[in-house]
């Protein structure tokens, strides 16, 4: 008997499935209500270790806290070379110099004659912190949440569990408080060792705080509040409500760069007191997880296991999009928003996505607004033009995806351990051996094969854009390159072999043993994915007849070997803290050696003349004289070859057509506030790109049904057969 009702229902269901393409995207990972909201979507790979500005030092931590905490200065978003501009300060101060007797010195005093420098920083009045329970007060003026009992804390696991919030004006004392925190015995600030050398009195201050802390703690681990306002720090003082002074030993112009980092952002003592209460740390309620700032954004959801959300700080002070930039910025549309109030985006949602392939696919679907270029997806996204430049592939162009590139202020190199009897030392033999190896290792090929062209071969330790870096012929390393047809060309391998002969190793053979030279190569590159690179490296040494012994190990073992000086050649790299040549050249400064000093000079290079020039250069302003000294230092280092100057990586960033105002900035981390997006365009494109395809479901179900018929027939036949 026919059942027309059931047929109709089935047809209706089928038509619903087939017309699903008209419905909203099914694969949208975000709530449908957010579709046209002014929200930027991004991802994070691993949970940040800390948001405490005295401790945070990693890029994945700065991604968040640089939007929240406001140091007195920041980098200009558009101008190059990088320059500091005021953020909360009224101006970038010029330091005052003093001699040993405290007499003021003129600005042009040589660095050696300066005993102390004083920076006086004035903060703009009228800047307020984000709403936070640490500031909340009762009608009688006492703080609502500064004396919480275990009973009060019951059931509170997030900042949102404290319903009352308030704000307070930013004052100079907050900056003073934060500088004092750098010496806090429990914070282990990574820059304390640097500041010990400069900020007057901070070394002794750390000892004082340690003693006081131990006295207060009495064996407890948590719930201890050390009120830093009670302990004055000689080198840092509050002048008035909006002014503070920092006094340092000698001359150190780089201090201003440090003061543009979150280490020098203000910390309200109320926040420190609030989070230091007993029972708070046990509930993960600490400054490590809940930043309190005056920046453009505030962290409203901190679930590092799933999602972090930044929302516009309702109390954010007036800041305008820059009206000046580089000549090419205007035509590129980067000045279209000049003079408009920042920030443009209301909310930024960071989702935890550890695996690169899902992250990349979500970007292609429009669910992430920006993405780096994956090695796996490089060919899909990027193509090389005839001139050797890069651009997005046709498929990306069709989607309106744009590519932004910039050379990073970083350097990756192969270091020689200068303490090693074979490859180290300062004899002509050792120099020529190192020079020969430098010529033989074809970094242009390495960049082309393994980095997809995302980098430039280095001519020295300085990255492009850093003062002292020279473009063109004047900037090449003459020990490795010739200048041919307007570009550097690596010297031929025959030249390297000749150098090896001059070093006393003809054909790469050690005459003492009659066997090929054998050099150990320490690398933290382990895993099958790195094997091709290591094989390539073996081939580079084979060109000279030298045997390379690859000693791949985990990063901890690698570091241990470096500390002990148990290496001959090794991989290393450096990301600049600030755009100053001192931040690169100190990697070759003798007293900063890894062995014995635990410094950052991993090759243990110690050339007295280089050291002397470094000491002269480090405190100088960016003058022609400084450039001349840097030239001398670079020439010295290139001749001695403590490193094989590897490469400066290039950053590739892809962004969708609905994103505006993107300009890669290697120094500034607080750039979210400049970004703008068009949510309506994004919603339309997402819908167009993500129409569900539902017919295969019906096809699979149909196949299963059809496939079941012979089974049923066979079953019935068997049952009938059994009955007979």
């Amino acid at each position, binding site marked *: 008997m026919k059942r027309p009702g059931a047929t109709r229902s089935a047809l209706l269901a089928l038509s619903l499935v087939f017309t699903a393409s008209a419905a909203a*995207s*099914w*694969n*949208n*990972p975000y*709530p449908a209500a957010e579709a046209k909201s002014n929200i930027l979507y991004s991802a994070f790979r*691993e*949970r940040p*270790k*800390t948001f405490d500005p005295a401790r945070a*030092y990693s890029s994945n931590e700065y991604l968040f806290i640089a939007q929240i905490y406001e140091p007195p200065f920041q980098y200009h978003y558009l101008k190059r070379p990088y320059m500091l501009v005021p953020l909360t300060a009224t101006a970038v101060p010029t330091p005052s110099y003093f001699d040993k007797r405290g007499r003021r010195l003129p600005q042009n005093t040589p660095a050696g004659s300066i005993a102390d420098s004083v920076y006086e920083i004035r903060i703009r009045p009228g800047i307020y912190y984000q709403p936070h329970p640490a500031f909340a007060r009762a009608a009688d003026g006492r703080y609502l949440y500064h004396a919480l009992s275990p009973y009060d804390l019951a059931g509170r*696991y997030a900042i949102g569990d404290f319903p009352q919030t308030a704000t307070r004006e930013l004052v100079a004392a907050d900056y003073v408080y934060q500088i004092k925190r750098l010496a806090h*015995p*429990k914070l*282990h600030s*990574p*820059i*304390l*060792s*640097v500041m010990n050398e400069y900020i007057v009195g901070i070394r002794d201050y750390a000892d004082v705080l340690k003693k006081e802390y131990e006295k207060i703690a009495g064996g407890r*681990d948590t719930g201890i509040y050390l009120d830093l306002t009670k302990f004055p720090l000689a080198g840092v003082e509050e002048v008035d409500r909006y002014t503070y002074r920092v006094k340092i030993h000698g001359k150190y112009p780089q201090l201003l760069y440090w003061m543009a980092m979150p280490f020098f952002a203000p910390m309200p003592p109320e926040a420190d007191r609030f989070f230091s209460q007993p029972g708070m*740390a*046990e*509930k*993960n309620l*600490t400054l*490590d*997880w809940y930043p309190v700032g005056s920046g453009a954004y505030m962290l409203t959801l901190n*679930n590092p*296991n*799933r999602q972090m959300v930044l929302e516009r700080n309702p109390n954010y002070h007036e800041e305008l999009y820059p009206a000046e930039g580089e000549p090419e910025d205007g035509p590129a549309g980067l000045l279209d928003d000049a003079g408009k109030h920042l920030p443009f985006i209301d909310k930024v949602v960071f*989702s*935890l*996505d*550890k*695996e690169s392939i*899902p992250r990349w*696919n*979500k970007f292609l*679907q429009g*669910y992430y607004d920006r993405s780096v270029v994956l090695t796996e997806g490089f060919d899909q996204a990027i193509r090389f033009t005839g001139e050797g430049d890069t651009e997005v592939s046709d498929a990306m162009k069709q989607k309106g995806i744009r590519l932004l590139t910039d050379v990073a202020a970083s350097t990756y190199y192969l270091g020689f351990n200068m303490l090693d009897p074979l490859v180290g030392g300062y004899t002509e033999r050792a120099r020529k051996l190192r020079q020969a190896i430098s010529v033989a290792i074809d970094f242009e090929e390495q960049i082309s094969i393994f980095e997809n062209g995302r980098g430039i071969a280095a001519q020295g330790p300085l990255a492009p854009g850093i003062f002292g870096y020279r473009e063109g012929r004047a900037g090449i390393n003459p020990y490795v390159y010739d200048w041919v047809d307007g570009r550097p060309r690596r010297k031929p391998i025959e030249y390297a072999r000749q150098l090896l002969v001059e070093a006393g190793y003809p054909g790469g053979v050690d005459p003492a043993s009659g066997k090929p030279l054998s050099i150990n190569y320490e690398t933290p590159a382990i895993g099958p994915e790195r094997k091709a690179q290591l094989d390539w490296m073996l081939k580079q040494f084979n060109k000279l007849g030298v045997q390379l012994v690859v000693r791949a190990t985990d*990063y*901890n073992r690698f*570091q*241990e070997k470096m500390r002990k000086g148990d290496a001959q050649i090794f991989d290393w790299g450096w990301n600049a*803290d600030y755009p100053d040549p001192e931040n690169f050249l100190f990697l070759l400064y003798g007293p900063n050696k890894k062995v014995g000093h*635990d410094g*950052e000079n991993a090759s243990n290079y110690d050339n007295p003349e280089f050291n002397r020039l470094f000491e002269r250069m480090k405190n100088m302003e960016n003058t022609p004289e400084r450039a001349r000294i840097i030239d001398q230092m670079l020439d010295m280092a290139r001749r001695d070859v403590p490193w094989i100057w590897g490469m400066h990586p290039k950053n590739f960033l892809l962004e969708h057509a609905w994103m505006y105002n993107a300009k890669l900035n290697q120094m500034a981390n607080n750039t979210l506030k400049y970004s703008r997006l068009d949510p309506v365009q994004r919603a339309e494109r997402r819908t167009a790109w*993500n129409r*569900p*395809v*539902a017919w*295969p*479901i019906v096809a699979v179900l149909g196949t299963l049904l059809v496939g079941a018929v012979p*089974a049923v027939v*066979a*079953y019935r036949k*068997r*049952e009938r057969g*059994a009955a007979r």
Partner: protein
Amino acid sequence: MIGYIIRRVLYAIPILIGVNLLTFALFFFVNSPDDMARLHLGVKRVTPEAIVKWKEDRGYNKPLLYNAANAGADKLTDTIFFRHSVKLFAFDFGRSDQGRDIGYDIYQRMWPSLAIALPVFLVGILVHITFSMLLAFFRGTYLDTAGVVLCVIMMSISALFYVILGQYLVSMLLRLVPISGYDVGMEAVKFLILPVIVGVVGGVGASTRLYRTFFLEEIGKDYVRTARAKGLSELRVLFRHVLKNAMIPILTGVVVVIPLLFTGSLILESFFAVPGLGSYTIDAIHSQDFAIVRAMVFLGSVLYIAGLILTDITYTLVDPRVRLE
């Protein structure tokens, strides 16, 4: 039975101490407290003083197992092993090396793990038993042969392949569900569909083949022949008699994993960005967070022991011949 359970719980104590000791030995064989400190403090501008302070703060400045400098019981108690392990027996997991409350994190992450593991477990059992019964029913036919070959192929394929294929096919090509992610409440459902499908399909090969063997073994027994002789249909024989008896070996493998559902799936959670306990453990291993590693291994051991006890109890329920003495 209560006596038996108490005895098993008491047996568990030395096992847990042993597991703890083994975890401790393996972890510190690979990592030293200095390594841990360096990894946590980062790679730039880490001073020896900062490393010393980091270790002091977390108690990693003590000797590993034996403190010769102390007297009496302190020789054993004032050590890293004792200080970091004893509280576990009171289920006080303490704080991670990053300073977070491990107990709270486990509580938070347990639910996403369960949200995937429970449907995979339940739907998986249903699907695997159905398929294996189907193959048992059509035993000796081309369908059975094809099914077994398919099972062998499916169990030979890496779980990662199912994940990548599932994401590509279902999320990229068909655009039916999100590729990865997680949300709370009903919003979580759309994120769970794909990992659950992948989890179930990934387990079809091995489980179906195993269960088919159990069913075939039962089908050949006398009571089945008797049932058939009584004139019962094949389906009735399978569902009424064979299934019931084959459930005993199936339960052996199934019940023991029930408590472990809490600890989540390492691969599924990592690739689908589900903030469960599986990815928590993997992250802790990568970041050398010993506090979390030992807590998760301890929890896993406790749950496994609980699973074994539960299995024994279940035997008494499904097989009246079994008595726990």
